[in-house]
């Protein structure tokens, strides 16, 4: 039996699968296109629902790969994968070749490019940022100000940017952005206790056990108002503050509001990495452009090709906890496959 595995992607899913398989005695080669591990968590500041530091999760990942039978190849990309019977030959842009018994795709997600929702003015107006930008600023320890250097007095969050939106081709819910919005509103309120927070939503998807509590807390203790309605138009005032228009569907009234900072809660989408691998390996994709599992109930980590496995948010939007669990199940699936070859 070939006891080697290539894991593509060193985010939460990839690292977790690698560490479990390494524990089981497999040799794992992790190929990561970036310099650092961590995927999207690499630049995240705090995590919902308990506001723990994302650095703790990164530290966990760093420790996990410090074992002799895991080798990390940073700044490396897969260029080709071919199959000889039960062996996969994986080639990289660094001229490395790996002959392995199984391949795991854990390429994660790409945050939605908010410039595609032109009406929100991202990339055009100075004081329109995304939830990812906000996390990065917080993580870098930057002061949160308007681009004019003022502390914001009113911040609005727009839910479902690039999700549940047929106009951008994404009809699915990205699952994490509602609670991210609540988390960020609380963080901003803690930072600016006198400021008002507004969240514009279609409906709030508080699916986690603690999320409803978190949501209530935001309303009761952190000056956050939730307005059911989509933002239809964003423009810039002369003083560079942002004017937004929306319909408050609960009161049935149109609404115009001036805010100092607008945060777009961007969803998840599949990027070039998973597209490329799906092309190379002829994998099936879902209509939503995620990688299609063989069977959504019984073989959620098995791709449409034998010996190629999938884990994490390349399958569908997931929280970090769900990604962890999904990765563990992928590791068991791979072990089972290799044992029965």
């Amino acid at each position, binding site marked *: 039996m070939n006891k080697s595995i290539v894991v593509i992607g060193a985010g939460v899913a990839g690292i977790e699968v690698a560490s479990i398989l390494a524990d089981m005695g497999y040799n794992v080669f992790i190929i990561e296109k970036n310099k650092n591990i961590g995927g999207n968590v690499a630049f995240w500041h705090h995590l919902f629902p308990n506001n723990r530091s994302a650095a703790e999760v990164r530290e966990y990942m760093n420790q996990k790969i410090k074992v002799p039978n895991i080798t990390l190849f940073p700044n490396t990309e897969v260029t080709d994968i071919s199959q000889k019977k039960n062996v996969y030959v994986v080639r990289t842009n660094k001229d490395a070749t790996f002959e392995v018994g199984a391949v795991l795709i854990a390429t994660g997600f790409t945050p939605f490019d908010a*410039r595609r929702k*032109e009406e929100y003015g*991202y*990339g*055009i107006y100075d004081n329109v940022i995304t939830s990812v930008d906000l996390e990065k600023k917080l993580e870098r320890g930057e002061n949160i100000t308007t681009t004019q250097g003022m502390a914001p007095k009113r911040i609005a969050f727009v839910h479902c940017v690039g999700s549940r939106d047929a106009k951008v081709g994404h009809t699915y819910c990205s699952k994490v952005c509602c609670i991210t919005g609540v988390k960020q509103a609380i963080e901003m309120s803690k930072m600016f206790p006198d400021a008002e927070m507004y969240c514009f939503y279609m409906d709030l998807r508080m699916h986690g056990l603690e999320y409803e509590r978190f949501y209530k807390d935001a309303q009761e203790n952190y000056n956050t108002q939730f307005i059911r309605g989509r933002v239809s138009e964003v*423009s*810039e*005032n002369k003083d560079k503050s942002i004017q937004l228009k929306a319909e408050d569907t609960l009161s049935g009234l149109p609404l115009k509001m001036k805010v100092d900072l607008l945060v777009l809660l961007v969803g998840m989408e599949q990027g070039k990495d998973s597209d490329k691998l799906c092309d190379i390996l002829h994998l099936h994709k879902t209509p939503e452009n995620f990688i299609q599992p063989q069977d959504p109930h019984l073989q959620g980590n098995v791709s449409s090709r034998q010996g190629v496995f999938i884990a994490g948010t390349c399958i569908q939007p997931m929280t970090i906890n769900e990604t962890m669990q999904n990765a563990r199940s992928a590791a068991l699936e791979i072990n089972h496959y290799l044992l029965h070859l």
Partner: protein
Amino acid sequence: MQNEGLKNIWAKYQKEIADDHYYYLRSCIRQNFFPGAEYYFLKILREVLGKDVYDDPRHTTCTGIGYHSDIVPFETIQTVVAREFALMTAAGYRNVAVSCVTSFGIYSEILETWREFPKELQKARENLWKATKREFEIPENIAHASDIIYKFRHQIAEKAKYKLVNTNTGKPLQIVEHIGCHYAKMFPVKGIGGAEFPQVLSGMIAAWGGDVVDYPERRHCCGFGFRQYLVQQNRGYSLSNSKKKLESMQPYEPDAIICNCPGCTMFLDRWQYTLYEMEGKRYGQNNESIPVLAYEELAALVLGFEPWNVGLQMHEINTESLLDKMGIAYNPDEKYLDKNKQPIGSFNKTGCLSCC
């Protein structure tokens, strides 16, 4: 505004615009309101740019205003449009230049309908044949007249006698642009620059030396909105929309408003007068009103044509403040004289809006 972001958006919304040989489809209202606009479109294309444009006296209104007021049924307007195309086909043209944003929206909507529902196209062919015994080809290229001026904006700039620069201060003039809802909001891909950050007029303004004012209500309706105005009881609504826009642009102290659409030019011009009569309020610099021009009128001024020949005396809001800033010479005594120097009559109220 971040220029890089704007450029990214504009790159997404460029379209093919025919280079020559246009079949011209006029606006049904513009010749009455601002006749110089269409006259100078033809003159600039033919005499300045050396293009071939066929101005066919047989073509009619597109009936768009009737359609948007629920008076003209969809089937009827499709047949009318089919007839325009039949005239174009018979004249040996393949490219259409549309002089009205409402019509441009109508042509775009009907062509999309025919593409999505070929049975509708078949029905339109049959209806036209029954009514007129005419047949038609679908145009190879449909451009709004402003698309064509946009396409040749740099050539116009090369031949320009005046720039959109305040000759007193040397600074670019601050110009508000309004593209009209039906130019790109229905089909953003059919408008240069798309619907949110349109480039068609702002491209002209930039090429001729001016600055574009990005004010909060830039995308808001001019106030025409068809039934907002056409149903008399709704006219307060029409007026309040124009007011909203004017109030929003006021802090930027614009030197002029440039419009894409006959209706928008008309409403932003005439309603300023009405608002002044109602509230005693003006929205431009020094408590004056803001001149409102069609893009062809602006192109004609830039090229050095005489303002009264361009028809600027047909505007409710005086345009002299703009002419003065641009350094354009004019004879105030000739404002209301025809080409034989005979009086053509004048508005009773216009002059008081910005002169006294």
